[in-house]
């Protein structure tokens, strides 16, 4: 309730606040992309290739067009042409989204047609009835760490960095390690499938979508369809998870094509199985780590090489070796991110790209080194704390890693730990504990915002943020309330609409920091205007901001969140079962805007780590080139019964160069979590598992004799 009397101002940032859209979410009132009805809506169903490589020789469209309700069959022979020769907001576009432009099939599950019908049942049956003939070519999907055709790639960071003489430093080391660590293909598997409805409305293309940035999707669609950006509007109010996968994908482009051809609204929703080949994924990695240290554990040599696969037509690098460029220094230091091109879909960003698999390899290797040196794993990390960026030489804008370890060790009970493996038993269970360090870059992207003082004393914030479950809508409400020195219930936040203007995507743990910066800037100026006491006209007073210049003026520094992960596991070596009994993560992740939702994000990230360590693995069949069990029964993500006590907390860590002090909490929770679990499994059993996931058969094989799996 708003009143005319001035309230005593109390800071909203830092105080737990339930989600402002929470009531809509618990009553089913929140509408997601596939939930919004349109008169005359037609339904599109994608048809995907059943071969892994070749050409489409023909499509038998006539019988399908004769089926009840079928309105159109779009394919490479009749679909509108789109532009792909541009550089988008984040990179050159992945041609997977530019559907139906040619007859080539570069992987199994490539979109070959869209069947549009009056009802979803009709569209589905017709799509399944469409016969497509292919000229099949042999395919190659065999991924391994020793592919001779691997090559280094610069992504958002250089492909290779090196300093010092690695061979000499390894030779001079008292203790050395040389191991390969592998992580499997993993899928985002957000609960809401990709869905988009396209329609033309008064000469404007409107898209109701589920994405991680409407400005991003709007600008890419405008370029693809050669439209003025102002004539494209993309809205995405509630988003059922993204994790890196919800950018420009085949469904939006196909929906726009169909809406254009049919001149009526068309919705395209991907099926769960289609998502496994059309929405990106985390590439499998093969990582080689070589370490050399003095007897006291100080590193002399560090090499981290990571190989991932990409498609034959688009380069995506999973920069897993990048984490070593931040975490540890050595006289000889070499890191490399390499790719190999195979007949598979293009991988993409997935929560903590690079850091998630990279920290598994590096933090397990550090644990192995601690064992070899006979040093406590936390002490080993403390002895290798760098003063400046190991590769960049730049100062750190805060590096509170050891504070996280100290607080975590105290709360987890680390001091009482006997370092020897395989000693603790609870009935049929062997027990062990493990730890690992975490880091994730803290960045911000240019954003705009508009803040309006309304005549009724309330405020409206317009910022094109995306709330994909992060709690951004609530966080921005709190940030705005503080900046305006008002109560959160007097602030309304509007987001998820490209008409609101350019803003950061929800990605890279940058969203809330980027948008908050813009909101703070506009709110500060608005307060100055209001201080003039000239009264508020009926249309309100609006101030706009753009953070491009402020971000450009930031000094070059190593800017990261840090964390310490702890896990206790129970392993039954006669069944192969691994249970994570408890996890604790302590993070230095900047100022925490909303402790309630930030804790949820951090805990959620740690649960991703449990899931990555024990369950997730998409397996490809070499004969067909496609997945076995491309669904949620075949691809296991952690469920309730897999998750025990998981706690996240933080240490004081204010970024003085950010107007609010934010660093970002979206991804740091997953980093190091799988390593902590794997290190705990070693502590329980005495066996190092260097291949994820730590499946029951791997535990059983280890118990049967092979000690390193």
């Amino acid at each position, binding site marked *: 309730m708003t009143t005319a009397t001035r309230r005593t101002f109390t800071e909203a940032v830092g105080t737990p606040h*339930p*989600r402002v*859209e*929470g*009531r809509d*979410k*618990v*009553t*089913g*009132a*929140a*509408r*997601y992309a*596939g*939930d*919004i009805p349109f008169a005359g809506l037609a339904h599109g169903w994608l048809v995907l290739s059943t071969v892994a490589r070749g050409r489409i020789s023909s499509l038998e469209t006539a019988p399908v067009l004769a089926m009840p309700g079928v309105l159109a069959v779009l394919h490479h022979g009749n679909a509108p042409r789109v532009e792909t020769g541009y550089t988008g907001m984040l990179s050159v576009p992945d041609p997977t989204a530019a559907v139906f432009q040619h007859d080539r099939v570069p992987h199994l599950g490539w979109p070959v047609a869209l069947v549009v019908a009056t*009802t*979803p*049942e*009709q569209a589905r*049956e017709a799509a399944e009835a469409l016969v497509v003939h292919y000229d099949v070519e042999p395919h190659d999907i065999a991924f391994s760490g020793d592919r001779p055709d691997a090559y280094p790639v610069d992504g958002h960071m250089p492909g290779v960095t090196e300093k010092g003489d690695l061979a000499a430093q390894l030779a001079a080391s008292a203790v050395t390690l040389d191991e390969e660590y592998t992580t499997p293909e993993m899928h*985002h*598997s*957000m*609960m*809401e*499938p990709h869905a988009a409805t396209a329609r033309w409305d008064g000469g404007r293309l409107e898209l109701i979508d589920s994405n991680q940035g409407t400005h991003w999707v709007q600008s890419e669609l405008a370029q693809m369809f050669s439209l003025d950006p102002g004539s494209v509007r993309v809205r995405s109010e*509630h*988003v*059922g*998870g993204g*994790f890196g996968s919800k950018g420009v994908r085949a469904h939006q482009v196909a929906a726009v094509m169909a809406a254009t051809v049919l001149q009526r609204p068309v919705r395209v*929703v991907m*099926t*769960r199985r289609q998502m496994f080949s059309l929405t990106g994924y985390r590439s499998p990695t093969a990582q080689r780590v070589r370490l050399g240290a003095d007897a006291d554990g100080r590193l002399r040599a560090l090499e981290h090489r990571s190989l991932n696969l990409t498609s034959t037509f688009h380069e995506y690098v999973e920069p897993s070796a990048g984490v070593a460029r931040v975490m540890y220094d050595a006289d000889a230091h070499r890191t490399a991110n390499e790719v190999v091109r195979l007949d598979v879909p293009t991988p993409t960003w997935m929560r903590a790209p690079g850091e998630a698999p990279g920290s598994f390899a590096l933090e397990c290797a550090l644990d192995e080194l601690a064992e070899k040196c006979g040093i406590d794993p936390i002490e080993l990390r403390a002895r290798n704390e760098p003063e400046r960026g190991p590769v960049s030489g730049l100062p750190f804008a805060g590096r509170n890693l050891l504070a996280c370890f100290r607080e975590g060790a105290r709360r987890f009970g680390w001091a009482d730990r006997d370092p020897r493996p395989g000693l603790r038993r609870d009935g049929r269970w062997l027990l062990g504990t493990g730890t690992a360090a975490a880091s994730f870059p803290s960045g911000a992207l240019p954003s705009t915002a508009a803040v309006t003082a309304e005549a009724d004393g309330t405020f409206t914030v317009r910022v094109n943020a995306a709330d*994909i*479950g*992060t709690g951004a809508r609530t966080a921005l409400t709190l940030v705005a309330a503080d900046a305006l020195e008002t109560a959160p219930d007097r602030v309304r936040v509007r987001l998820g609409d490209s008409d609101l203007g350019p803003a950061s995507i929800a990605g890279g743990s940058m969203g809330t920091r980027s948008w908050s910066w813009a909101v703070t800037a506009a709110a500060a100026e608005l307060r100055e205007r209001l201080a003039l006491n000239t009264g508020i006209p009926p249309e309100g007073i609006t101030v706009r901001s753009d953070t491009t210049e402020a971000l450009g003026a930031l000094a070059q520094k190593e800017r990261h969140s840090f964390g310490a992960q702890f896990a206790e596991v129970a392993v039954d070596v006669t069944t192969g079962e691994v249970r994570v009994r408890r996890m604790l993560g302590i993070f230095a992740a900047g100022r925490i805007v909303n402790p*309630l*939702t930030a*804790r*949820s*994000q951090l*805990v*959620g*990230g*740690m*649960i*991703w780590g449990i*899931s990555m360590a024990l369950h997730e693995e998409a397996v490809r069949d070499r004969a067909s080139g496609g997945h076995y069990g491309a*669904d*949620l*029964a075949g691809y296991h*993500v*952690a*469920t*309730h*019964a897999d*998750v025990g006590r*998981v706690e996240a907390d933080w240490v004081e860590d204010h970024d003085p160069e950010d107007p609010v002090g934010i660093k970002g909490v979206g991804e740091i929770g997953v980093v190091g979590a799988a390593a902590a679990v794997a290190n705990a499994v070693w502590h329980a059993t005495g066996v190092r598992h260097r291949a994820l996931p730590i499946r029951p058969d791997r535990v059983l094989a280890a118990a049967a004799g092979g000690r390193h799996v």
Partner: protein
Amino acid sequence: MAPALPPTSSTVTLNINGEKHTLTVDHRTTLLDALRERLDLTGTKKGCDQGQCGACTVLLDGRRAVSCLQLAVAAEGREITTIEGVAEGDRLHPVQQAFLDLDGYQCGYCTPGQICSAVAVLEEHAAGWPSAVTGDVRPEAGPPPLTAEEIRERMSGNLCRCGAYVSIVEAVARAAADGEKHTEAAA
């Protein structure tokens, strides 16, 4: 005489949240699609459409069911409760209130299914139904203590990819405790 329907459709009356809805459906239409596409009851979500994720969980005659594996024509005569029918008017169900207060969600997409599931879990437990982790399953043993382990086991048909499990379990436990308080007060 009513106009003849195509042989692939039927007219059914569905009893949803205490209201009767008569509609003609394609026989292939799932209960989930009938709710979402025909009746604008979009609170029930489609996560996988093959019975693996639990996002489309509704209550059929008080028991939970994944509505993607039910044909609409087969749901006639059943009492169907969706997320839109869980609250009593403006008053949230204790499970809904606990999800809201304890942040038992993030993106919110699995939430309607989690909540419908949790409402039924509390009733199944109160009725003395054992789960796979219940120690003493003799009927005379009565309902086992509703521990976190019991809740996790009973809720495991509902996936949450954001990983809100910890606070969901807390929310279900709190709603159960609130329910007990009500029962005690009534007695």
